[in-house]
C-alpha cells in the first residue's frame, strides 16, 4: 500500500529545454501528418515562432530527467505494477521548441478500490515556461496493481 502521508507531497521540480529534434522524433513516432509539427517552415507559415509541442508533449517533458521514475521509487512502488489510469491537460499557452519548461508535481490524492487490490495515485503538475507563464496543468492518475 502507498503511504497516505504522501498526499500533499511535492516532488523536486525539473526544468528541461524543449528540443526541436525531439519534437520531430515525436512527430515521426506518432505518425503525425501535419507538417506544422515537424517542418519549421510550415510552422512559421502557420504563425508559430518555432515548432510547437503537440498537445500531450508536456507529459514527455515531465519524464525528461536522469531517472524519470524516481517518484515511483520515492513512493516505494513497483514499476512493473504501474498502469496509467487517467490523464488530463489544461491549456493556457503554447510550448515551443527552445522553451525552457519547469514542471512541478504534487500528489493530490491516493485512494484504493477492491479492498486495496487497486490503488490510485493522483498527481497535479504545473507547466511553466522561461517567462514564468503558466502554459498548462497536467493531472495524472496512476494505477498500482497490488
Amino acid at each position, binding site marked *: 500500500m502507498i503511504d497516505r502521508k504522501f498526499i500533499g507531497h511535492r516532488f523536486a521540480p525539473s526544468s528541461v529545454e524543449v528540443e526541436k529534434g525531439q519534437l520531430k522524433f*515525436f512527430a515521426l*513516432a506518432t505518425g503525425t501528418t501535419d507538417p506544422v509539427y515537424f517542418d519549421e517552415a510550415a510552422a512559421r507559415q502557420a504563425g508559430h515562432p518555432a515548432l510547437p509541442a*503537440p498537445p500531450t508533449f508536456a507529459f514527455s517533458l515531465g519524464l525528461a530527467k536522469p531517472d524519470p521514475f524516481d517518484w515511483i521509487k520515492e513512493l516505494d512502488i513497483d514499476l512493473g505494477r*504501474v*498502469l496509467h489510469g487517467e*490523464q488530463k491537460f489544461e491549456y493556457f499557452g503554447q510550448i515551443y521548441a527552445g522553451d525552457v519548461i519547469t514542471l512541478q508535481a504534487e500528489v493530490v490524492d491516493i485512494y484504493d478500490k477492491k479492498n486495496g487490490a487497486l490503488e490510485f495515485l493522483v498527481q497535479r503538475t504545473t507547466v511553466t515556461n522561461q517567462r514564468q507563464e503558466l502554459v498548462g496543468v497536467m*493531472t495524472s492518475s496512476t494505477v498500482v496493481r497490488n
Partner: protein
Amino acid sequence: MNLPNFDSVQVGDMLPPLQKPPITRHTLALFCGASNDHNPIHVDIDFARAAGMPDVFAHGMLSMAYLGQLLTHWVPQSALRSFAVRFSSITQLKDSITCQGRITEKFVDNGEHRARIELKAVNQDNDVKLIGEAVVALGH
C-alpha cells in the same frame, strides 16, 4: 487553419475520424525514445513477463497522442482548452487504433464560444481503449 464556426457546428456532429496503422514492436520502440517513457514494460518482453503480463503492450500516451491529432486536424492547437482521457483497457500489439470525436455540447464560457467533444480510441474490434473529452474554442 480556420476555426469551425459555432453556428455551423451541431451537437451530435462527428469529427472526421483518424485511422492509425497497426501498432508494432517498432512503433513502441520509437515512441519509447521519442516520448521519454522508458518504462521497459512497453519494449522488453522479459520485463513484461516477469511483471505478469503476456507480452509488451502500448503506452497509453501513444493513443492519447493519436487523439490529439484527431483534435488538431479539426482545430488549431491554440483552440484547445482541455483534453482528458481514461485508459480503459490495454492497447495490445497489432491493434489498429481509430480515433473518434463527437460534439456533445456547445456553450459560452468567459465570453468564448466553445464545444465539448466526446473522444474515443477503439481498436479494430471496436473495443474501447481510451475514452475522454476535450473542450475547444470555436469561431463566432
